[in-house]
């Protein structure tokens, strides 16, 4: 579904990604794991074209995204749930969800998708008139994922959904991710919480200093000695 070939990207003269190639097939959940500063967020940002592509190729369902501007990416069926949620804090929950369905093709489906998100996350329905910025971190993450679903995407990009949340809430967030999977969405998730994320995905790539160092099924990575020593502490 999504294919990256030798992608390079960065900020100004600083290069964050070197020759990254990866693939996400339809119906799969794939994780990109790695330490702080490995370029995980940059990887999702370049797919969303929020940062410029310096080299290589990105394609969604065979269509090149190289010349697609940031605001058109969502029309290709890719929804980005950014790091730290990036909700619109002074809009209500429902308005945030409304913004998720901003693109023209999503507006006619607004009511049905809103009902769907509320069914998926009843908590959001309770809070629909609350300002998003006043909710707890876990609720905000729920709202951010809901906002991502409002455009009716095929592929959901999740950037560190567990970041900055209390351990109890982290559990709930991974339950959310599992439910999104069960709903049939294809998911590309970036995480530092490696042990948790490997339990909910099929495959994973290990990213270190901007390069893919390893890839395989979640089981392979979980059982890999290097990964265990370096990231799981076993």
């Amino acid at each position, binding site marked *: 579904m999504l294919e990256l070939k030798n992608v390079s990207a960065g900020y100004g003269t600083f290069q964050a990604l070197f020759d990254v190639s990866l693939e996400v097939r339809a119906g799969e959940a794939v994780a990109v794991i790695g330490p702080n500063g490995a370029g995980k967020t940059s990887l999702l940002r370049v797919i969303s074209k*929020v940062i410029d592509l310096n080299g290589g190729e990105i394609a969604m369902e065979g269509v090149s995204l190289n010349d697609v501007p940031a605001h058109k990416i969502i029309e290709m069926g890719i929804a980005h749930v*950014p790091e730290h949620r*990036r909700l619109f804090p002074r809009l209500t929950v429902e308005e945030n969800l409304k913004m998720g369905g*901003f*693109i023209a093709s999503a507006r006619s489906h607004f009511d049905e998708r809103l009902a769907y998100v509320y069914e998926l996350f009843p908590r959001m329905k309770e809070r629909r008139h609350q300002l998003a910025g006043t909710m707890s971190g876990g609720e905000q993450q729920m709202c951010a994922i809901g906002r991502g679903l409002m455009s009716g995407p095929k592929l959901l990009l999740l950037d560190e959904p567990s970041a900055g949340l209390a351990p109890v809430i982290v559990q709930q967030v991974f339950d959310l991710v599992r439910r999104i999977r069960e709903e049939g969405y294809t998911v590309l998730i970036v995480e530092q919480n490696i042990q948790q994320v490997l339990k909910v995905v099929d495959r994973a790539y290990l990213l270190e200093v901007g390069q893919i160092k390893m890839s395989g099924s979640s089981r392979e990575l979980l059982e890999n000695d290097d990964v265990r020593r370096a990231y799981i502490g076993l």
Partner: protein
Amino acid sequence: MNIPMIIKAVGFLAVLSIPALGFSDYVLHIAISALLWGFIYTGWSVMGRFGLVSLGHGAFMGIGAYMVTMLWNHAGITPWIGIPVAVVVSMAVGFMIGFPCFRFRITGHYFALVTLALSEVVRLLIVALRDYTGGSLGVTPDSVISADTPNSFIAMQFSDKVTWFYIVVAVWVVGLLVWRAVDRSMIRYAMEAVSQEEDAAASLGVHVTRTKLIVTMISAGMTAVGGAIYGQYQLYINPETTSGIAISLQIVFAAIAGGMFVQLGPTVGAVITLLLTEGLRQTVGHDVHGLDVMIYGAMLVLFIIYMPRGVLGRVIEVFENRTGGTSGPTTQPRPQPGE
């Protein structure tokens, strides 16, 4: 019909009946000025409410006033054509200044500084082109009215204040309708999203640059109309009263003081500033030069700290808290009860 609607309807009828109440020309002049400035401030708040703080709207006002007068004086082109031309030129200038700023993400204070420079550039241009514009001395649209022909439709010159009153009311109402149209459109949501989280808005499909440009150009066009009407009404314009920093800051102050997040806020701001200026003129006179500007400055600081939603915004807020009603989204934080 709810209570705010009834208040609005009664208020509007009261405004319409002002000329019939037999006030002096002075009172009528104040009313015309309040509505005309109210229109200009409304134009500013169309972009200002979304965090696009322009300290340079004097530029668009100057373009409006001078384009129309120059076309009339030098080419004999009626203001009825001159005003649309001025609006287009003003929007083009808005585009020229907005596009690079928005494309390269010049936001917040930096954007305000760019616009501040713009208003001075326009003022200096007007002064420098003194052969055509009359420079600092200002210029009068060539008059075609006299005691025998008190009104000229073609020249948009009317000696009768009541006529002007109704023209300005019409312009003001159109301004309020534009404000409301923006308020009820998806542009409003898009702009609120952009002003809070620009990248997130972009990844949700908001064309950030284009949305900001639309709002900026609407605002620039409205302000140009205001400048043009101002020139036609006063029959005298000069660079200081239509452009430059002083007028630009006055626009910002009045819109913030009245309340830029509510439809009638800028109009309330116009009433406040006019009462302040006129009140000072009658009590202190012209002896203390610049006193009104000093008071503006002090009040601006106080407003931003204690009443960021402006006078009308605050009044509505208090009223809503009493009745427990809500008015939907606002750009300012409002605490919400937890569980």
